[in-house]
C-alpha cells in the first residue's frame, strides 16, 4: 500500500468508510476542521508537487461528481466519455502526467462521500438507465492505485450491476485488482490499463506496476468475468520505438483476443506548454518526454509532428489488424485528419466505434443537468 508522510481527515469525514479503513489499517491521521496548507494552494513548485503525492487529505466533496471528459475540445474528434471524480492527484509519478499542470493543491485528496456520488448516478438512472453511458473514474486520480485503501470499487461495481446498459471503467497503471475480483462477473465493468513498452514504463512511469504485472492483472480480471481495455497512451517516440511498440502489440495479441476488450485506444505524447517547466525540473533532460521534439498544435497542446504521429499510429494499428482485423482501435484527442489518415474514415463511420462517438448522449445529459440545476 502507498505510504503517506502525513494523513489529514476533515472532521466531516471522520465517520466515513475511508476514515474507518485508515483506523483498521493502523494508519494515523490528524483530524482537521479546515483544509490544511491552504497558504500553499496555487501554482506549485516542483518540490511542492512531489510532496503533494505524499500528503493525503480525506474530505467530503460538495460539488458535482459526474461530468463530461474534460479532454474534449473543439477541433478534436472526441468520444462520448464521462468521468466520475472521486479524488484528485495520483500517488504514482509519470513524467508526462497532465496533473502537473492541473493540480494546485499541496495534498492528494480522496473524497469520503462515495455514497453521494452514487446518489447522483441513481438520480440519472431514473430517466437514463437505457442510455449507453461510459463512465470512468481515472481522470484526475488513478482509479485503482489507492483502491486497496478506499475499496470504492466495491460500491461502484455493486451499483453498476443495477444499470447493465452503463459501462464503468477503472483506468489504472497499478496491478491492484485482487480485492474486487470476487465481485465478478460484471460485464459492464471495464478494467483498463494504460500501457507502454517496458522500456518506457521503466524510464517514464515511476512508481507504476510493470507492464508484465499489468497484463497479469488484466488476465485475472477476464477470468473473474470483467471486461478489460487498453490505452496505449502516450506513445512516446524513442530510438527503438518501432521495435518496442511492435513488441508490445505482440505481447497483447499473444495473451488476449479482440473479444476480451471492447476497444484499445491510442494516443501520442501531448501536454500543455506551461507544463514543460515543472516536468523538466522534476525529471530532468534525460527524460524522453523532456527532450522530445514537440510543436504547438491546433488545440494549444505540444505534440509530435503530425506526420510522425500518423506514422506511429499507422504502424501500431497495422500491426494489430494484421494479427486480427477484429481489433477495435480508436485515437484519443486527435484531429479529424489524423483519424482519416489512420482509419480511412471518421469514428462515426467506423464499424465498432459508432456508439463510442454518439454525441446525442452528451446533448441528452446536458439537458438533464440543466433541468436538475
Amino acid at each position, binding site marked *: 500500500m502507498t505510504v503517506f508522510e502525513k494523513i489529514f481527515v476533515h472532521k466531516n469525514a471522520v465517520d466515513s468508510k475511508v476514515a474507518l479503513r485508515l483506523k483498521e489499517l493502523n494508519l494515523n491521521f490528524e483530524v482537521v476542521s479546515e483544509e490544511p496548507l491552504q*497558504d*500553499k494552494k*496555487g*501554482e*506549485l*513548485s*516542483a*518540490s*511542492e508537487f512531489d510532496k503533494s503525492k505524499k500528503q493525503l487529505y480525506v474530505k467530503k466533496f460538495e460539488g458535482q461528481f459526474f461530468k463530461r471528459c474534460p479532454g474534449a475540445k473543439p477541433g478534436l474528434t472526441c468520444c462520448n466519455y464521462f468521468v466520475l471524480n472521486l479524488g484528485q492527484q495520483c500517488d504514482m509519478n509519470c513524467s508526462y502526467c497532465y496533473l502537473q499542470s492541473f493540480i494546485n493543491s499541496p495534498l492528494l485528496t480522496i473524497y469520503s462521500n462515495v455514497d453521494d456520488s452514487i446518489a447522483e448516478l441513481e438520480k440519472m438512472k431514473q430517466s437514463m438507465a437505457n442510455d449507453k453511458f461510459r463512465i470512468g473514474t481515472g481522470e484526475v486520480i488513478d482509479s485503482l492505485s489507492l483502491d486497496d485503501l478506499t475499496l470504492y470499487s466495491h460500491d461502484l461495481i455493486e451499483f453498476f450491476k443495477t444499470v447493465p446498459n452503463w459501462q464503468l471503467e477503472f483506468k489504472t497503471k497499478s496491478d491492484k485488482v485482487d480485492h474486487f475480483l470476487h465481485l465478478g462477473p460484471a460485464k459492464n465493468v471495464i478494467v483498463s490499463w494504460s500501457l507502454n513498452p517496458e522500456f518506457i514504463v521503466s524510464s517514464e512511469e515511476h512508481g507504476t506496476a510493470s507492464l508484465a504485472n499489468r497484463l497479469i492483472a488484466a488476465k485475472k480480471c477476464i477470468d473473474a468475468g470483467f471486461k478489460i481495455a487498453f490505452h496505449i497512451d502516450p506513445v512516446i*517516440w524513442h530510438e527503438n520505438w*518501432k521495435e518496442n511498440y511492435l513488441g508490445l502489440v505482440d505481447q497483447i495479441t499473444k495473451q488476449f483476443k479482440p473479444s476480451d476488450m471492447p476497444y484499445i485506444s491510442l494516443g501520442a505524447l501531448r501536454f500543455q506548454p*506551461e507544463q514543460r*517547466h515543472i516536468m*523538466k*525540473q522534476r525529471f*530532468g*533532460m534525460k527524460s524522453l518526454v523532456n*527532450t522530445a*521534439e*514537440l*510543436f*504547438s*498544435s*491546433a488545440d494549444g497542446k505540444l*505534440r*509530435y*509532428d*503530425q*506526420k*510522425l*504521429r500518423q*506514422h506511429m499510429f499507422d504502424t501500431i494499428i497495422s500491426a494489430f489488424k494484421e494479427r486480427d482485423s477484429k481489433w477495435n482501435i480508436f485515437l484519443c484527442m486527435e484531429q479529424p485528419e489524423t483519424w482519416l489518415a489512420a482509419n480511412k474514415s471518421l469514428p462515426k463511420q467506423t464499424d465498432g466505434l459508432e456508439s463510442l462517438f454518439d454525441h446525442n448522449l452528451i446533448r441528452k445529459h446536458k439537458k438533464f443537468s440543466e433541468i436538475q440545476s
Partner: protein
Amino acid sequence: MKHALNSLLNYTWPKHAGGVTWNQHTIAGAEPYKELSDKLSIEELLTDLFDTLNFSQFSILYNWANECSLEIDWNKLCQHYNLRWSEILKETIQAYLETPIEFQNWCFNKKLSARDLAPLLILENKDNTVLKLFSTLTPSKSEGTQLLDLICDLVSMGVKNLFPETEDTKKWFKKLYKLRHPQSTATDSQFSDKITAWPWPKDFNTDWKRTGDKSFIDISFKVENQNDFDKKLSQLNYVKDWANTNSPTWDQPKDNQ
C-alpha cells in the same frame, strides 16, 4: 556607501526632494536624509513610494530586503504588485538573481515576468556566459523568451557551441532551434529537397513550410484568366501524377523515425 533603494530599482526620485530613510535604511534620494516614522510599516512605505514594480525590480527589492535583514510581509506586498507569494516565485527570483547582470539588464528593459523566466529553473549554473549576449544582441521580448527556452534546454542537455556566429538574433534562433530539434529539422530539410526536385512549372512558387505540428508544401501561382486557370491546374495535375509515380511515399517520415 550603500545605494538608495530607489536607485537600485532604477526608480527616479525628484532631484529637489530630499532623501528618505526608514529605520536607518536608505530608501530613496540623496543627502540630506529625513528619517521616516517607524510607525509606518515597511510594506506601506514601499508601496507608497514604488507604486508599480516589474519582476526585475521586485527581485532587486527582495534581495535588498534580505541583505538588510528586514522582515517583510511578502504576501501583503505581493498583493499590491499583482503577484502571488509562493515557493515557485521565490525560486524564480533566486534563479534570476544568479544570472549575469547583463542578462538582468535586458530582462529589466524588456519587462520580463516570472513566467517568462521559468526556463531558468532547470539550469544548474545560472551564471551562464551565453546569457550575457542578451544585452549586446538585444533580442525583442518575444525573440528573447524563445531563445531563453532553447538555451536552458540545450545547456541542460549538455549541448555545446551555443554562441551565435553573427549578431543577427534570427540566425541565432535558427541555429539553436536546429540544435534542439535535430530530427525534425533534418526531416523538414529532406522533404524540402525532395519537393524542390519535382518538375514544377517555372511560374509556380513552391516551398516546404511548417506551422506548428503540421508541415506542408506551400504552392502559389498567378491566374490571369480562365484559360490560364485550366492550364495551371493541368500543370499541377501533371506534377501530382509525377510525384505519385516517382515519389509515392514522399509524405511519409523515413522508417528509422
